[in-house]
């Protein structure tokens, strides 16, 4: 097991190197000039030249790349050209917000998606099944930003049930330890702070969780249908086990194998979707920051953040592979 983890982590190095080259080239190929973006409409040629010299944008591309790579090896990801803040510390500061949002969205997807998919399969062909299948199609085709605006308009602006933006009401003087606000509230027993953070999470999590939810419903449904037709479920029924035991132990557990794989792949969708969701709800995570960085062609931020997202994506999928071994003894041996 350990050797598998190490091997997979080792494989990550060439992947990330390749990605850094692509990213570097791709960002430079984008239309626009970072210096002009920084200085605005009335930039003078001298000012632009000064900025380019300052950030090394006047050097040949390959030289810029290797300088960048060398700095990165020492943990220096550069400073934002927009705010001047170090990229790494900004990332670490904002990342917990995105993690909190992604986990909440995942929770929505799992806690609603698995039961929904399960019951749709059990009542295959019923109105519930049709609703689940149709609803999940809708969930996939509606763009995240549209859904986010819709939810915000309806539940926050029109009905006023939930807060419109942010992560926590600033009037609550909450103590922050991990920067996962809900967790912080629970740890410090500041219940009002935790509850307020939960309320702020509801709409963004629903917006971000819609696509994973739809996919989980579909995969669970298909997978449960498959498992229900397997001989071992009939054996379980022949044992006279209680309905709940058959469902949990003999159907759902087996049906979770493809679902767990899908959830891992969705980690990427969650991080990418977070850009739009966080922007709509002014949720101070990496997504919102990335959005601003794109607008300003903030090369160091874009490079650093996207590489970090790639690492997270790979690690999440590694974790999924490991969990697969826990779920299915047959893949454990090799």
């Amino acid at each position, binding site marked *: 097991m350990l050797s598998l983890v190490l091997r997979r982590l080792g494989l990550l190095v060439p992947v990330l190197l390749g990605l850094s080259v692509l990213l570097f080239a791709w960002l430079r190929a984008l239309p626009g000039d970072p210096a002009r973006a920084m200085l605005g409409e009335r930039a003078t040629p001298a000012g632009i030249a000064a900025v380019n010299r300052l950030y090394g944008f006047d050097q040949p591309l390959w030289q810029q790349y290797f300088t960048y790579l060398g700095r990165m090896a020492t943990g220096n990801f550069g400073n934002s050209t927009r705010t001047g803040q170090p990229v790494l510390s900004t990332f670490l500061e904002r990342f917990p917000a995105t993690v909190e949002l992604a986990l909440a969205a995942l929770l929505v997807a799992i806690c609603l998606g698995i039961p929904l998919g399960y019951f749709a399969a059990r009542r295959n062909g019923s109105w519930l099944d049709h609703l689940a299948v149709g609803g999940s199609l809708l969930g996939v085709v509606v763009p995240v930003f549209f859904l986010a605006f819709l939810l915000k308009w309806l539940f926050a602006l029109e009905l006023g049930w939930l807060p419109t933006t942010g992560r926590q009401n600033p009037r609550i003087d909450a103590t922050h330890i991990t920067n996962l606000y809900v967790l912080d509230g629970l740890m410090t027993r500041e219940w009002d702070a935790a509850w307020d953070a939960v309320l702020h999470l509801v709409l963004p999590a629903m917006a971000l969780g819609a696509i994973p939810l739809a996919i989980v419903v579909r995969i669970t449904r298909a997978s449960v249908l498959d498992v229900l037709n397997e001989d*071992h479920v009939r*054996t379980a029924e*022949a044992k*006279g*086990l209680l309905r709940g*035991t058959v469902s949990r132990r003999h159907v759902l*557990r*087996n049906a979770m194998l493809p679902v767990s794989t899908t959830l891992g792949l969705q980690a990427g969708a969650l991080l990418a979707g977070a850009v739009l969701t966080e922007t709509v709800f002014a949720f101070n995570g990496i997504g919102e920051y990335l959005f601003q960085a794109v607008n300003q062609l903030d090369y160091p931020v874009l490079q650093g953040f996207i590489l970090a997202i790639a690492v997270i994506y790979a690690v999440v999928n590694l974790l999924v592979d490991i969990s697969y071994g826990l779920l*299915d*003894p047959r893949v454990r041996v090799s």
Partner: protein
Amino acid sequence: MSAAADARRAGALPVPPGESLLSVRDLRVQFVRRGAAPVTAVDGVSFDVGAGEILGLVGESGCGKSVTSLAVMGLLPRRSSRVSGEVRFAGRDLLTLPQQQLRDLRGRELGMVFQDPMTSLNPVLTLGTQVTEVLRRHEGMGRREARERAADLLRGVGIPDPARRLGEYPHQLSGGMRQRALIAIALACRPRLLIADEPTTALDVTIQAQVLDLLQQLVRESGTAMVLITHDLGVVAGLCDRVDVLYAGRVVESANRRDLFAAPRHRYTQGLLGSVPRTDANGKVPLTPIPGSVRDMLPWADGCAFLPRCHRGDDACRTAGIDLEPRAGADAASTPPHRARCVHPAGLDDAPGPAGAQPAGAHAVARPDGAEVRP
């Protein structure tokens, strides 16, 4: 006979006097699909099994034998199948029993061994979980007690080093071991009725004989009633007390084993026996297959379903309501009566039989392990 079985378990319902432990009457199973005509898989099957008795249900694929067993166990998908008739087990009709009560009986009083051991165990659970869960459900055992019993059970079916095996997963066991484990599971709560649906089909020949011996031994020792479903007459010859031959969802011949092999009456039974390799003929007697396939059938309403494949059939067979009844005085005198659903029963009405017809006589049948059985 059933009194002994009843005494084994306190609280088990007694079998009403004059009734067998399992008594199936006019069992009918239809599969329904929206937009399609219903398909009748079992068409009025009746049989009885008493404690300590082994009944063979014989027929080729598609004759309704597996569906019959699933219907008895209440394991057919309820939305797509319609089951009617009566399945009386110890005086209760299983078909009208509430789901929860049926679940209480399954695994405890009714055990079932399935055809394919490779797929009949859950691949992601340890053998221990799969054996102990039935004990914990029905016998109210704790974790440890159930584990000890499970180890005993595995040892009882001939699995070496059972304590270690309990921690293993199905893919770590061979096919024969898996079928043994499934038998152990089916017998864990000492059921009064065991249904074995082609328990040896997926196993290789040497293992087949071992598994059959094991089943027979367990059934004889515990006085369990057993319904053995098979297409293999060798298995029947070695194991069964009585045999019902199924064709197109109906019993076409019902007899004790000796009568069936000595004087098959129905032309289908005769054909089945003719298709079995004979070990007493030094390989010189060519096999006589039954022409056509089970799909070439006449609806029972129009006459004998076997008619299109029968070498003896004529227009007399094109009549509805050919009954399952004794066809000769000696057949009626047998216990139970030797009954056949045939207008021109073999051995009694062979006059215009064409060349190649089977001589009715004693058949010796090879058991899977090569031993020869003369009923």
